[in-house]
Every structure is written in structure tokens, then in C-alpha cells.
């Protein structure tokens, strides 16, 4: 097991290296000159000295490979650069907004699992009944509906039907925990709908597959009540597959966060990324992209490792 963990951790290194190379290449590929774009709206535009200073600051006077090495060395020290717009360190800006993302994502995942596992199990146990058909159709419809549409309609419903709906504001948890939780509840629920349908589908498929296996026949034939067979044995074994699909869905959730934050006006990393794209604040764009990709890779690894802990067959 320890060896498996070590191998998997080491395999992260080339991936993260490749990620950094790709993100840097995007920055280097920006059409036009970054300094021109940046100074376009600036009073110092045309001031050759200011331009030269900026170029030096960004290491733009050095060859591309050297720039990459300098940039990577900064990353390794936790220095993601400085925002063109606010003049603050990028990492600080990201970390300041991280709690918003963590809170939304955690509540959304909890809701999706809390609803999805029972619904999926119900669908499997009532296989080929109207309940099953309804749940199956609901889940296909569920992942065909764009989440940003649901979010937009939620905002619309709020303003037309329930003006006091607790959305479109944000209060930090440290300031007022109760108010904070009330305000993120509805956005988190909407976000949970991005992953709910697949969790339902996976739970159903996995429970059905387990119900066919020999150990279920054994459990039944030794006289266990069906309820106990399903909840104690089948569900426990099905959860591994559900864990896996949840891991895959982390990426969907990160993408969904960007849209959720934009629509519900929540100050998370997604909004930071969108704002920096509008302002062409490249250090923040690359910093936030790199940060989110790194988190995604690490969470995927964590899910894989958890899977290996729960299911010895995985650790070859």
C-alpha cells in the first residue's frame, strides 16, 4: 500500500510539470504584446521608460525558455506573480477567495451524495417500475439541462416570486456564520444538480450489478431480510463505484463553480478568474488556472488513493 501511494505521488510530478508548461505556453502565446495590451488604457501609454520598466519586471526582455524557468522557480516558491490591476500578489488573492469555493463545493457534494445515493438505490430496488422509469428519465433530463440556465431561472424566480430569497449577496462565514450558510444554501443546491444525475445513475447501476452477485444469494439464502441485504451488503459494496464517479465529477464541479459564482455573484476564485479575463490581467489568469488545475489533479489522486484503501484489487 505504501509503495502504491509513493508511486502515485511520484507520477504527479511529470503531470504537474506538463500543466505548468501548457499554462506558460498559453501566456506566451497571447496574440499581440502583453505590455501594449496592459498599457492600452494607461496614462503612461507611450512612455517608453514605463514600458521598459514593465518589460523588465515581467522578464519580457529575456528569452522565452529563461522566462519559463524563472516563472517556474517563482511557482515553486509559492510566488504566482503580481496582479497587473490590484498590484497584490496573485496567490494571496486566490487564497482569500478559496473559502467561498470550498464551502460551495463541500455543501454541493454533500447534497448530491445525500440525495443521489438513496434515489439511485430506490431506482435499482424498484427496477422496471414506474418509480424506476421516472428516476431514470429525471436523471437523463437532469444532465441535459444546463446548470447555468437553472441558476439563471432561480434568480428570475427569486425576483418574480420570492423577493426575499436569500441569494445574490455574500457575507463571510467569520462575520456571521448563520447568514453566510443561508446565503450559500441555494447556490450550493443548484451547483449540486451538476453532479446529482450521474451519482443517481452510478448508484443504480452499481447496486443492480451487486444484486446479481453470489454473495447476495448467500445472504438471502441464510435468511437475511431483503432490507438488510440491500443496505448492509449491497450498498456498502456499491459505494466504491459511487466514490469513483464522484472523483470524476470534481472537474465538472470546478467548471460549475465558475458559472455559479458568476450568476449568484459570489466572490470565489471563478469570479476572480472571469474578472481577470475581462481586464486581461494575465498573472491572475495563469495563476488561477494553474491553481485550479493543481487542486483538481490532487483531489483526483486523493480519490484514487481512497479507492485503493477501500478496494484492495486496485493496488496491483
Amino acid at each position, binding site marked *: 500500500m505504501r509503495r502504491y501511494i509513493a508511486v502515485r505521488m511520484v507520477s504527479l510530478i*511529470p*503531470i504537474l510539470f*506538463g500543466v505548468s508548461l501548457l499554462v506558460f505556453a498559453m501566456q506566451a502565446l497571447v496574440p499581440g504584446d502583453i505590455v501594449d495590451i496592459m498599457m492600452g488604457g494607461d496614462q503612461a501609454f507611450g512612455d517608453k521608460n514605463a514600458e521598459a520598466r514593465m518589460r523588465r519586471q515581467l522578464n519580457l526582455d529575456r528569452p522565452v525558455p529563461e522566462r519559463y524557468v524563472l516563472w517556474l522557480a517563482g511557482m515553486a516558491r509559492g510566488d504566482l506573480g503580481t496582479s497587473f490591476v490590484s498590484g497584490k500578489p496573485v496567490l494571496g488573492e486566490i487564497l482569500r477567495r478559496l473559502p467561498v469555493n470550498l464551502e460551495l463545493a463541500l455543501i454541493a457534494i454533500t447534497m448530491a451524495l445525500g440525495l443521489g445515493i438513496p434515489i439511485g438505490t430506490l431506482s435499482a430496488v424498484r427496477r422496471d417500475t414506474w418509480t424506476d422509469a421516472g428516476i431514470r428519465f429525471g436523471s*437523463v433530463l437532469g444532465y441535459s439541462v*444546463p446548470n447555468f440556465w437553472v441558476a439563471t431561472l432561480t434568480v428570475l424566480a427569486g425576483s*418574480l416570486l420570492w423577493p426575499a430569497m436569500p441569494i445574490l449577496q455574500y457575507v463571510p462565514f467569520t462575520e456571521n456564520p448563520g447568514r453566510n450558510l443561508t446565503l450559500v444554501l441555494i447556490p450550493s443546491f443548484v451547483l449540486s444538480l451538476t453532479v446529482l444525475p450521474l451519482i443517481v445513475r452510478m448508484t443504480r*447501476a452499481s447496486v443492480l450489478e451487486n444484486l446479481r452477485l453470489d454473495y447476495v444469494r448467500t445472504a438471502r439464502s441464510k435468511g437475511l431480510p431483503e432490507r438488510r441485504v440491500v443496505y448492509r451488503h449491497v450498498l456498502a459494496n456499491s459505494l466504491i463505484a459511487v466514490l469513483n464517479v464522484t472523483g470524476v465529477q470534481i*472537474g465538472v464541479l470546478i467548471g460549475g463553480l465558475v458559472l455559479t459564482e458568476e450568476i449568484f455573484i459570489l466572490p470565489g476564485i471563478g469570479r476572480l478568474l472571469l474578472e481577470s479575463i475581462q481586464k486581461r490581467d494575465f498573472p491572475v489568469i495563469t495563476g488561477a488556472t494553474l491553481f*485550479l488545475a493543481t487542486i483538481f489533479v490532487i483531489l483526483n489522486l486523493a480519490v484514487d488513493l481512497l479507492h485503493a484503501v477501500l478496494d484492495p484489487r486496485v493496488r496491483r
Partner: protein
Amino acid sequence: MSVAEPVAVAGVAGVAVSAASRPAHHLWRQLWHRKTAVLGLALAAVVLLGALLAPWLAPDDPLAMSPRRLGAPSASAWLGTDQFGRDLLSRLLYGARVSMAVSFAAVGMATLVGGAIGLCAGFFGGRVDLLLMRGVDVLMAFPTLLLALAVVATLGGSIRNLILAVTLAYIPVFSRVVRGSALSVKQNDFVEASRALGARDGRIILRAVLPNVLAPIIVQATFNLSTAIMIEAALSFLGLGVQPPAPSWGSMLSEARNFMELDPWLALAPGGAITLAVLGFNLFGDGLRDILDPRLAGEG
């Protein structure tokens, strides 16, 4: 499970061969028996026809403004008009063009590039496989929407860049699917037989391996068409896709946010169009998968 395994694998290889060489009318008949697949095909066909025939079907110029702002649905404008008095139905039809153009072009390119990577990696194995798949792993390290977002953020929003962004985001899926299938097809005797008959690598790949990995490619492509529609809409919604005044479902929904209290149709119509299009390709994909790739049929 372990006892059933070899039988199942042999069955899959057999089915894959027959699926690819099966006459088309047989496939249609099987599809016809699945009501949801037919519904999916119908929805997809409506959207595709709407996109193709937009210039003839649209009652109005999608960019022509009129004094009838935020007009309710009426006989002259079936879905009403937007904040500039533009005909909503015409904009939806032209929006379908953007949606279909981006998804079909991106999925097509990702299938070609990703498929080629997967075929080479799976067929040659060894160092080629390692190198190609490491590259694919790097692309997989980005959440799909984030990668597409980063590409259009860097290059700017346009149809061409949207296609590029979605293509890049989808290359990993196709590489993986095709590599997996190629690996299992390679084990078959007919591959060994063509080698023994003196066929070169290129010929074996194209004539023996490729036809047998087509089924999973087609299934995957259908599903990716539906998610590509979603990504295009999301990027345009965020203002990073097609630029106004050109109509795109995503940007229409985004613009509607400022006026939807006055005219909810503005928000309902584009979102509904996205949902129906995505649902269509999803249902059709489910049906295709059940027929072409029965290994996964239970997952429905």
C-alpha cells in the same frame, strides 16, 4: 465475475466485429425499437435542420432591430422580441447554427486527432504509448470547462477559437477510448493473421484495427456532441464565445439576465433550446451505445 470474464471479453470482440460490418438497415431497425432513442434522434434532427435551414426558416433577420422591444409572443413574432426588438425565434434558429457548427467541428477534429493518438498508442505500445499518453494526461489535468475557458481567454472569443478550445478539451477522451479498444482488438487472431500475410503496420491499423474501434468512437462522439453544445453555450454565456450582436444561445441567455423580469421568455427560450438539443444527442447516444457497445448497456 472472474468465471464470466473471458466469455464476456470474447463476446465483446465478436459483437464489435459484427457491429461494424452490420448492414445499416439492421442498425436502423434496432434503433427504431427504442422509443427514447427515436425521440432523441428526432430532437437532434429538429435542431440540425433548424441550423441548416435557418436562413429560409427564420421569419426575420436575426440582427434587425425594431421599435417593438420586449414584445410578447404574437402572430408576427411567435416567441416575441428581445430588448432591441429583434425576433427571438429567428435568433434561436441562427443560434442553432453556431451551436451545431462548433460542436460538430470540434467533436470531428477531436475524434480525428484523439483517435489517431489512441490508435498509435494502443497499437505500437511501449515508448510511443508512454509518450503520447503522458501528453494526454496533462490535458486531462484540467477540468474540461477550465481548459476551454483558458484557451478562449488567451486567444479571444470567436467561432474558430471556440472550436479550437473544445477540440483541445476533448482530445483526451477520444485518445483514451480508442487506445483501450485498440489494445483489446490487437489481441485478436485476425490482426496476427494480417501480419503473417505480410501487411505493414499502417495497413493493419487502417484495415484491421480501425474498423473494430469505430463503434466506441461513434458512441463517444454522440455523447460529446451534447456536452460540446453545453460548453459552447457556457463560454458564450460568460461573454467569451461568439461576440454580440451575433446570436448564440449562451449569449442570448446571458443578455436576457438584465431584462428577464420584464420578459421571462428571453431567459426561457434559449435555455430550453440548449436543453432540447443536449437531451436529443444524449438520448440518441444512449440508444446507440446499447446497440453498438452492449458491454456498457447495463449502465443505463
